[in-house]
């Protein structure tokens, strides 16, 4: 739709009329147009790739009832607002913003388009027409941490992080808590690179960590660069993030955390079509299949695989929670008492490191 005065008027009239028609207005005739805003490219083999797989599943399962569009490489900042507005004006009635840094933009634009449903991945701010959703990746990281605790010879791991936001901090903590259950001396050093996707910097960060004695790398950035360095240097290994990255590092990838967003996208779109959508936070994990553990590397001994599977199954059946006390913070002071489990709200605001993390400044 070109942007001219007539179209803007039309859009305005339509927007004004919609509340009268009620939300079932979308159900008949026109397909529900769903927009996706991605921080990187769908070809990154990681985070954005996984979201696109979810989008494809949505198209496949709901067929003619939906129509999807996506915008790649949207920087976190003012550009995101423009993209969101553009999607809204193109007629998207449901928009998924899939990066933490889009939060402010989503809230701002959602105020201007009250008839459009927004969902923000990994966010914490909601409004009447803004819901949030996430996946319990930290459950997957607990499985990876278990493997790392068993296999690491130096007892030192590195963690390439993007930004020290709760989502990432939570992952680091879950990883090291799990590893320390196996090896109480296990430590981890996070290196934040201030970017979700800068492969050259991710690779250099991996080199810097390996040079200083770590032999396991975990990451919370979008691509396989760190795993490639792990492969090249022949260290114990690392873990795929968001998708199976074994093509890039067949020896070094021990296993991977796979994001499976499709079910959430199908469920949400169906709810919008049915008029039953409501603003809430959705945070499923291993049990619901939204987080999956990829294939284990053949090099991992059977007893370690069994230990990892036990942690995975424990989280699926609810008998094991990595964030149950006692948990000390990085200074050694008790943060969570024995028998206490952190709530979701506490996890989503996590800004402290557990014992075993060499905290960045």
């Amino acid at each position: 739709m070109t942007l001219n005065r007539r179209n803007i008027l039309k859009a305005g009239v339509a927007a004004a009329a919609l509340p009268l028609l009620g939300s079932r207005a979308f159900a008949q005739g026109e397909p529900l147009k769903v927009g996706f805003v991605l921080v990187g490219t769908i070809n990154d083999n990681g985070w954005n790739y996984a979201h696109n797989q979810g989008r494809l599943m949505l198209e496949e399962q709901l067929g003619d009832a939906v129509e999807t569009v996506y915008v790649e490489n949207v920087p976190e900042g003012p550009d995101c607002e423009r993209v969101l507005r553009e999607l809204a004006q193109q007629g998207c009635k449901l928009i998924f913003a899939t990066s933490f840094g889009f939060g402010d933009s989503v809230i701002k634009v959602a105020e201007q388009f009250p008839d459009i449903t927004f969902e923000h991945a990994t966010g914490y701010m909601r409004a009447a027409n803004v819901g949030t959703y996430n996946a319990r990746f930290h459950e997957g990281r607990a499985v990876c941490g278990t493997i790392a605790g068993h296999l690491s010879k130096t007892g030192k791991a590195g963690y390439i992080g993007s930004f020290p936001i709760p989502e990432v901090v939570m992952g680091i903590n879950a990883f090291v808590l799990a590893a320390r259950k196996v090896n109480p001396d296990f430590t981890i050093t996070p290196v934040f690179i201030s970017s979700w996707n800068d492969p050259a910097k991710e690779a250099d960060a991996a080199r810097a960590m390996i040079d200083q004695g770590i032999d396991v790398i975990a990451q919370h950035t979008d691509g396989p660069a760190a795993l490639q360095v792990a492969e090249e240097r022949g260290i114990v290994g690392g873990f795929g993030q968001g998708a199976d990255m074994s093509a890039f590092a067949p020896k070094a990838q021990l296993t991977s955390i796979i994001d499976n967003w499709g079910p959430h996208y199908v469920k949400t779109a169906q709810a919008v079509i049915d008029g039953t959508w409501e603003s809430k936070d959705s945070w499923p994990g291993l049990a619901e299949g939204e987080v999956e553990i990829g294939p284990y590397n053949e090099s991992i001994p059977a007893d370690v695989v069994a230990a990892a599977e036990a942690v995975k199954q424990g989280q699926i059946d609810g008998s094991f929670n990595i964030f149950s006390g006692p948990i000390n913070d990085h200074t050694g002071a008790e943060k969570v008492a024995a028998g206490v489990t952190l709530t979701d709200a506490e996890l989503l605001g996590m800004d402290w490191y557990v014992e075993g993390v060499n905290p960045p400044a």
Partner: protein
Amino acid sequence: MELIIAIIVTVVGASTPILIAALGELVVEKSGVLNLGVEGMMLVGAIISFIVLFTTGNHYLAILCAAGAGVMTSLIFGFLTLSLSANQTATGLALTIFGTGFSALAGQGYSARPVTLLGPLFPAELATHPIWRVLFGYSALVYFSFALVFAVWFFLKKTRAGLILRAVGENDLSAHSIGYSVIGVRYAAVAFGGAMAGIAGACFPLLLTPQWAERMTAGRGWIAVALVVFASWKPFRLLAGAYLFGLVMTMELYAKASGGPLSVIPAELWAAMPYLATVVVLVLISVRRDASSNAPACLGRPFLPAN
């Protein structure tokens, strides 16, 4: 000791693409043309080298094709700014946007494909001892970047062609009036800059991380542009500058990975340091007027002879 060696090797890797791209841009600017499209040309070089490497498996062919692709891209810029006298700043920015988009388009379907890095030039036996590794442990691209510093310096200072190029950059009308083809010289300089930016781009999948990812140069083309000013258009100062930038970029990561005292400096400040250094140098240059900024007098101005 081992750690220092490792840091040196990583710094060399991080600095090489910046150095090559900046040397190309230095020659371009010496001819009086400002091409801000380095980042875009690097991305074109990166994807073309990746595609060639993936299909043929030949690293050197990949480098060659990246250089060729850089030349082609830079000639678009050359045609617009030199033949049509378009604004150089705006055209250069547009070239970066074009290169970003083109590389993303050409790279579709290549992102899930791993390749292999370009190996060291010298046999591994030479690089077994750490000390020798510092000298002989690199790939051909690194030695090429060293040779290029000397070549550019020699060309600009010691050859007649270099003198003409500098004359065109300092006073295009005078050069024109004594019979030199200003446009021709500038086309050649722009093409050279494009070739170097293309090779600099090839460093990413060949030297740093063996994959294609959109925008994988991540702003290093801009550092190269800043570096030319930082070095006041002098090749050896540029060499020092490129390694300083590379050192800062790498030390940031080593400092954070060590968890030691250096990691107290916030990540954002580390990331901003190359740019802060550029600003400081620019201020110093403008304060020391007598030393002059050394900027080519015709930099960025279109050549419009009276007749």
